């Protein structure tokens, strides 16, 4: 006689943390999503009625994810919003009245053309015959919308494509400055800065801060991310910037298994180069064009921070990197260093940043001016270096920690390190997106949160508007999607079902932003 063993209940292998919304990475329909913690990692999972279940890594260290929550600062209303709430987040960008934060940083992509054809490019740019190039009027319309929304905007970044090859780029920078934008930054691959000293000289008269792609030193890193070995060009561009007095932030795109090991080398190089005031590390954004990846194995902010601590143990510990309170705190972490020769001191070791930037526990505020200074330093609008906007704040923050007058020249010794993870169609979390403070400024006068712009379909929509050429909805180049992916004419991927193999998109040019299909407009009875 056999006995049936009693059935045992089984525990789930994850902790359910948050309920939110996201999009289907294939059709971009807005769908419900949940955030779970498993093996001390944070994952976002969602299910599209048509395309099935998707899961992606949000944060590689769940403890750090939890710890970051206290750095969540109340948002600020912009002076003006540009759209109405109609379909709900993320379909009303933007900014809509429900957005939780004003824009710390506005990006204007002045063209889609580029002098490189990188295998990795969230903007899907390159030597393309059918792109766009903004006119003075279009840039002015965007800047005016930004000024109406912000009053005196903190930072405008000109990007592309490759903005340095736009014939009007110097005029654009000047126009932004004339309209009262405090800081202008220029996002470039550095090629023109390496080869056109006359251009660098003219640029230096306007003194924008240069954000230069700089992914590492291994030839393989260059080939895999940029398609060419650009080491010599990068060095030359930096030397030219130093010679003409332009401050540079190195921007490193970090891809899992490719250049993670170069995190420490990049900052060691940056600290020594006279032009470099900052390093920004960005896990490769799996929007637009990129190499095949596994969403469960991607890099996140906490992975970059762990990597830096491992590779520079004499300089860093995990707690030196503080989440940024203006955006959602899991999106960006920053530290500042004082550097002199071999001596490196992370500023969070000099004062208890938590005493000022912990918005949950602190009811007693010892010194609001120090908090104000730290908020400006730990912000998406912080621009490093002598011509940046962090100098005065560093002086103010350090007077709060009793660092003496003698540190007045602190800007010369300070160095900023930024870690920023952008969302992609897999990781898009509406909860974080609603407080995004980095916006794409479009010529039709909208301010669209950067990660919505890249993931939801706005980029395709705007490019179509500006170029007059139909653009397909871009789908992440994820390993699990390989069987249904086709390559677009720009090198990115699109869904293969029903579209032609040339990647010309839907023939009817239908909307790229489908309506919500879950939990909207339904009642139980």
């Amino acid at each position: 006689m056999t006995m049936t063993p009693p059935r045992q209940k089984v525990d789930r292998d994850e902790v359910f943390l948050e309920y939110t919304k996201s999009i289907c990475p294939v059709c971009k329909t807005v769908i419900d999503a949940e955030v779970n913690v498993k093996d001390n990692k944070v994952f976002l999972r969602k299910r599209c009625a048509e395309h099935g279940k998707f899961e992606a890594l949000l944060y590689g260290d769940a403890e750090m994810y939890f710890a970051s929550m206290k750095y969540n600062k109340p948002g600020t209303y912009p002076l003006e919003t540009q759209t109405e709430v109609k379909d709900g987040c993320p379909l009303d960008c933007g900014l809509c009245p429900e957005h939780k934060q004003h824009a710390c940083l506005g990006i204007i992509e002045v063209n889609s053309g580029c002098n490189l054809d990188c295998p990795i490019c969230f903007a899907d740019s390159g030597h393309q015959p059918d792109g766009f190039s903004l006119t003075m009027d279009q840039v002015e319309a965007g800047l005016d919308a930004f000024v109406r929304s912000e009053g005196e905007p903190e930072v405008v970044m000109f990007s592309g494509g490759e903005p340095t090859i736009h014939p009007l780029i110097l005029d654009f920078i000047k126009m932004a400055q004339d309209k009262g934008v405090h800081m202008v930054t220029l996002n470039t691959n550095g090629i023109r800065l390496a080869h056109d000293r006359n251009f660098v000289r003219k640029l230096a008269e306007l003194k924008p801060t240069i954000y230069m792609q700089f992914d590492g030193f291994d030839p393989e890193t260059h080939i895999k991310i940029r398609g060419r070995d650009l080491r010599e060009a990068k060095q030359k561009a930096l030397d030219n910037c130093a010679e003409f007095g332009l401050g540079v932030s190195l921007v490193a795109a970090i891809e899992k298994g490719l250049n993670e090991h170069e995190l420490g080398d990049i900052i060691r190089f940056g600290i020594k180069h006279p032009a470099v005031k900052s390093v920004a590390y960005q896990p490769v954004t799996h929007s637009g064009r990129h190499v095949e990846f596994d969403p469960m194995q991607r890099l996140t902010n906490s992975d970059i921070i762990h990597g830096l601590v491992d590779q520079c143990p004499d300089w860093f510990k995990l707690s030196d990197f503080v989440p940024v309170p203006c955006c959602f705190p899991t999106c960006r972490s920053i530290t500042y260093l004082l550097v002199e020769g071999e001596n490196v001191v992370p500023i969070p070791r000099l004062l208890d940043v938590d005493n000022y930037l912990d918005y949950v526990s602190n009811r007693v505020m010892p010194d609001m001016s120090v908090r104000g200074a730290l908020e400006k330093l730990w912000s998406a609008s912080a621009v490093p270096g002598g011509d940046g906007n962090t100098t005065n704040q560093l002086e103010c923050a350090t007077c709060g920690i009793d660092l003496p007058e003698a540190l007045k020249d602190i800007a010369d010794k300070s160095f900023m390190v930024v870690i920023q993870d952008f969302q992609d169609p897999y990781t898009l979390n509406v909860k974080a997106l609603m407080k995004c403070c980095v916006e794409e400024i479009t010529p039709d006068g909208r301010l669209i949160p950067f990660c919505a712009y890249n993931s939801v379909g706005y980029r395709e929509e705007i490019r179509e508007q500006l170029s007059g050429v139909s653009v397909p909805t871009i789908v992440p180049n994820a390993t699990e999607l390989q069987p249904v992916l086709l390559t677009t004419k720009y090198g990115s991927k699109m869904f293969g079902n029903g579209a032609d193999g040339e990647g010309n998109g839907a023939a009817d040019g239908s909307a790229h932003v489908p309506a919500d299909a879950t939990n909207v407009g339904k009642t139980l009875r």
Partner: protein
Amino acid sequence: MSDAVQDPEDVKLCCATAYQQDAVALILGESYHPGGLDLTRRLGRALDLRRGQRVLDVASGPGATAFLLAAEFGVAVEGVDLGDQSVASANAKAAANGLGDTVRFTVGDAERLPLDDESVDAVVCECAFCTFPDKATAASEMARVLKPGGRIGITDVALDPNRLHDELKTLAGWVACLADARPVDQYVDLLADAGLKVTQREAHDDALARMIEQIDARLIAFRMAKVPALESIDFDTARQRVALAAQAVRDGIAGYTLLIAEKL
């Protein structure tokens, strides 16, 4: 103890004066005790402070503990400190923040507290008990001013002096709360002898490690800044001492402890 300072009274004054000095204030920074505001908050909760109670802060320094307890727990705080400059600036800060009615600072000695018997509901003493040369008297003074059933909350350095490195047994070590600190059990006994029964003890060694790290970072920053007030400091020697202190924490020789005791 240091060879340079033998008389306990001198030590006490020297310690209090040192805390007022620019150099020491610069190096120790805003957080005069390990654990910062978070640990003070925890201490307040462990004491179960109630709105309207009267609390004594022994060795109140610049007043950070007193301000937090007043603002977050709604208590009135009496701060006592040996340094007249600390007291004056803390009173000025209280007035500037509109707390002049609830927080008050007085110059006074922990071994002769200027308060009546059984006049306060709770006593706090953060990172200072270890520096009192006559700890037994200080403990009985705190017990004297406490109402029956009242509680005392101490956060302090705890260590085994016999295992401490010689170089830390200098005045600098004393000022930094290391050289006359005792093992936790001795604190418990000292309090018991004064009629204070320890009901709760917690280890917060990380807070001490973090503060030592902060001191080291500030030393590097000051060397970069070439601060005139610190011209006479031998930074390399200072950093070696700091490294010894950090090692002592790692080795379990030095730690930071939170004690709650009740007046029987």
